C-alpha cells in the first residue's frame, strides 16, 4: 500500500565532474531532454506509485533553481494537506552540506512526524523510469529490513566509473560494496534506491551521528549492511546517473533512440514536470530538422541535426546545429555553426560565429545571467 511509504530524495550530489552546468544549480535541476529537469524522474517514480509525502535533502547552496522548479509540488500532486513536499536544508552548523547524515539529523522531526512506516530512498541524479510497485512487492515478500536496487552492467563500464558497485556472494546476497573501475568486464551498480523501515532509518541516523560519521547517507547504510537483513532487487531497464558532462551528453543523446525515448518518457504514463505554458514551436520554410528533439516555443528557420533543443530557442536563417544540446531561451543568430556543444540557458550566439567542440569533450557555454533558474 502506497500509503505506508514516504519518499526521500538525496539532491546534494557532488558536482565536480559537471561543473559548467552546476555553477548556479544542483544536478537535480539541470534541464534534460529539452523540457525536463533531472529530478523529475525521481519525483515521478515516487509519486506515480502513490507516495504523497516526499522529502528532498537539498545541497548547501544554489537551491533557488530547484525550489523554482518544484514550487509547491503541484506538478507531482504533492500540494497536500497531509505530507506533500518537504525540502530539508542543511543547518548552518552542519558540515558544509557534504554530510546528508548530519543534514537528516537536523531534520529528524520531519521523519518523526511523517505518518508512513517505510521510506523509499533515492538519488536526484538518476535518470530512469521505474515502476516502484514491483520493487515494493519484492521488498514486502522478502520480509527483510532493507531492499537494495542494482543494475547489471556488462558494456561501456567506463560510463559508470566511480559509481558504487554491489558485490554479491555465490547465494546472490550482498557481500559488500565497492567502486566501479574501468578495467572490469562486468559489474552490478547500485542505483541508490533503497527501501527501509522508517524507525530503522532513524536508529541508523542516530548511531551514525553518535559515531561521528560524516558523509553520504547511502554510504552509511551500505557501511551498516552487515547488521541489516537485506533483500536485493535487480532492475533491468534504462538507468544512468547524470554525474559528469559526458554522461549528461550521452543520456540526452540516448533519448534520440526510439526505444529509449519510449521507455523513459512514455512508459508508465510518462514523466511529470513543471508546466511552463509555452506555446507550440513554429518551423518556417527552409528549416531542416532531422533526428532531433525540439521543445515547445522554438522558432526554427535554420537546420538542426542529431541535437536536443530546449524551450523558446530561436534558430535563425542559415544557422546549423549539429550533435549539440541547447537549453532554453537561447538565440542562435544567422549563419552560426554549432557542433558538439552544450549551451546553457539565455545565451545568444552572434552572427556567423563557429562554436565547435570535440565529439569526446563537448564544449560547454555557460549561461548568461543569474536572473533565472
Amino acid at each position: 500500500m502506497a500509503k505506508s511509504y514516504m519518499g526521500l530524495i538525496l539532491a546534494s550530489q557532488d558536482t565536480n565532474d559537471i561543473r559548467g552546468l552546476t555553477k548556479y544549480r544542483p544536478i537535480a535541476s539541470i534541464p534534460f531532454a529539452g523540457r525536463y529537469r533531472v529530478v523529475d524522474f525521481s519525483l515521478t517514480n515516487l509519486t506515480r506509485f502513490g507516495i504523497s509525502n516526499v522529502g528532498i535533502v537539498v545541497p548547501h547552496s544554489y537551491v533557488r533553481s530547484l525550489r523554482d522548479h518544484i514550487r509547491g509540488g503541484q506538478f507531482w500532486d504533492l500540494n497536500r494537506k497531509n505530507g506533500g513536499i518537504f525540502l530539508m536544508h542543511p543547518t548552518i552548523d552542519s558540515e558544509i552540506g557534504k554530510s546528508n547524515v548530519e543534514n537528516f539529523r537536523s531534520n529528524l522531526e520531519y521523519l518523526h512526524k511523517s505518518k508512513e512506516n517505510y521510506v523509499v530512498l533515492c538519488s536526484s541524479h538518476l535518470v530512469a523510469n521505474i515502476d516502484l510497485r514491483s520493487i515494493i512487492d519484492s521488498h514486502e515478500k522478502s520480509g527483510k529490513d532493507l531492499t537494495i536496487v542494482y543494475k547489471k552492467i556488462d558494456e561501456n563500464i567506463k560510463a559508470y566509473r566511480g559509481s558504487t558497485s554491489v558485490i554479491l556472494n555465490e547465494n546472490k546476497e550482498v557481500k559488500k560494496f565497492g567502486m566501479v573501475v574501468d578495467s572490469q568486464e562486468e559489474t552490478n551498480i547500485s542505483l541508490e534506491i533503497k527501501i527501509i523501515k522508517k524507525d530503522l532509518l532513524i536508529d541508523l541516523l542516530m548511531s551514525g551521528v553518535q559515531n561521528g560519521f560524516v558523509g553520504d547517507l547511502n554510504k552509511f547504510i551500505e557501511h551498516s549492511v552487515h547488521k541489516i537483513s537485506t533483500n536485493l532487487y535487480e532492475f533491468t531497464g534504462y538507468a544512468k546517473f547524470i554525474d559528469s558532462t559526458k554522461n549528461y551528453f550521452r543520456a540526452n543523446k540516448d533519448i534520440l533512440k526510439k526505444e529509449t525515448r519510449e521507455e523513459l518518457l512514455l512508459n508508465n504514463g510518462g514523466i511529470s514536470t513543471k508546466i511552463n505554458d509555452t506555446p507550440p514551436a513554429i518551423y518556417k520554410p527552409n528549416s531542416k530538422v532531422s533526428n532531433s528533439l525540439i521543445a515547445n516555443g522554438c522558432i526554427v528557420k535554420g537546420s538542426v541535426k542529431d541535437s536536443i533543443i530546449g524551450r523558446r530557442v530561436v534558430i535563425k536563417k542559415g544557422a546549423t546545429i549539429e550533435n549539440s544540446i541547447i537549453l532554453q531561451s537561447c538565440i542562435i543568430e544567422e549563419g552560426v555553426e554549432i557542433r558538439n556543444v552544450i549551451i546553457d540557458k539565455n545565451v545568444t550566439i552572434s552572427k556567423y560565429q563557429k562554436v565547435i567542440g570535440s565529439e569526446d569533450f563537448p564544449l560547454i557555454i555557460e549561461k548568461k545571467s543569474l536572473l533565472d533558474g
Partner: protein
Amino acid sequence: MRKKEMIAMLLAGGQGSRLVPLTSDVAKPAVDFGGKYKIIDFPLSNCTNSGIDTVGILTQYRPFLLNTHIGTGLAWDLNSMHGGTAILPPYTTQEGGAWYKGTANAIYQNIQYIDRYDPDHVLILSGDHIYKMDYNKMLREHKKQGADVTIAALTVTLEEAKRFGIMNVRDDNTIYEFEEKPEKPKSNLASMGIYIFKWSELKKYLIEDEKNKESENDFGMNILPKMLEDGLKMVTHPFKGYWKDVGTINSLWEANMDLLDENNDLNLHTNNWKIYTSGEPKGAAYFGERAVVENSMVVDGCEVYGSIKNAVLFPGVIIEEGAVVKNSVLFPNVKIGRGVILDRVIVGENTNVLSGTHAGDTTIKVIPQNKTIK
C-alpha cells in the same frame, strides 16, 4: 467570503452545431485550437491576465470534457481559496428544474452564486471566441464613464453584420441604438458578446425578465434593448486586434492556419499575455532522420518521420515516414500512416488514418475523432 469588485461569468454551454462532427461529443468551448489549446483557454487566460480571480463557468451541452479540462482551475491560476473557478450546470429546485433557456436566464439561475461575492460589476463572456483582451482596461473605461453597461465592440463588414448585435453610437461611445442580428444593419459596429454590467442593475433586470413569459431570456434580444429603452447609460469599448469566431469548420481551419505566420496578430509567442491550458506534460517533439518540415506548428509529444507543410499538429500526433500532410490540422494523438496523403483536412482526436488520399476543396474535409481509416 471576500467582496469582489468584479467577477466573470463565462457562458460555455454552446453546442457548436456548425462544427459537427467535432462537437458531437464535446461542447464548442472544448474544441481544440492552435496546437495545444482549447477555445475556452482564451477567455479563461484573459481573465487570469486581467487579474480576475473569480470565474463562474456555465455549462450545459456535453460538459464532461470541459469539466475535466477545467478541473480545479489550477492551470489558469484560478484555484483560489477566495473565488477561483466554479462549474455551474443547470439544476433542479423544489419547483422543478429547467435547462438554461437563454443567455440571460443562465445568469438569472446563478444569482445566488454571484451574490456570494457581492460584486460591484459582473463581466459576461462567452467561451467560443479566439482573442486576447484586457478586461481590466474595459472595467476602467466602464467606471470612468460611469456606465451601467459596457459592450466590447468590433468593426465588421456589412455582410457579417447580420450575424451580430449591431450598435449605433455617439462620439463619446455612448450607445443610442441596439439591434440584435438585423436584416438590414444600420452600421457595422458589432457587439462581441462581452459585457460589463453594474450588478445591482443587471440583477433587477434579470428578475424582471424572468417574470415576462414572452421573453426569450436573451441578453441581445431582451435585456439590452430594455435597458436602452429605460435610458440606462450604455457605452461601447472598441476592440482592436485578432478576434475570430471559430463557428464553422472552415473558420476553425483558417484560424489555425493564421498561426503559421509568426507575426500573426494573436501572437501566441509573447510572454506578457500567456495563454494557459491544462494537460499532461509530454516530451519534446521528435523529428526522424528523413522528416521534412515546412511552415508548420509542432508541439511537445509529436513524432514526425514523414513530411508536413502548412500543418498544425497537436500533442501526441505521429506522422509515419512516407506520409505527406499539407494544409491540415491534426488534433491530439492522431496517427498518419505510411503513404497517406492529406490536404486541407482536419482530423479529430485519436483517429488513425492508415491509408488513402484525403483532400478537402473549398470546404475543409473533416475526418471525425476516434476512428480508424484502413
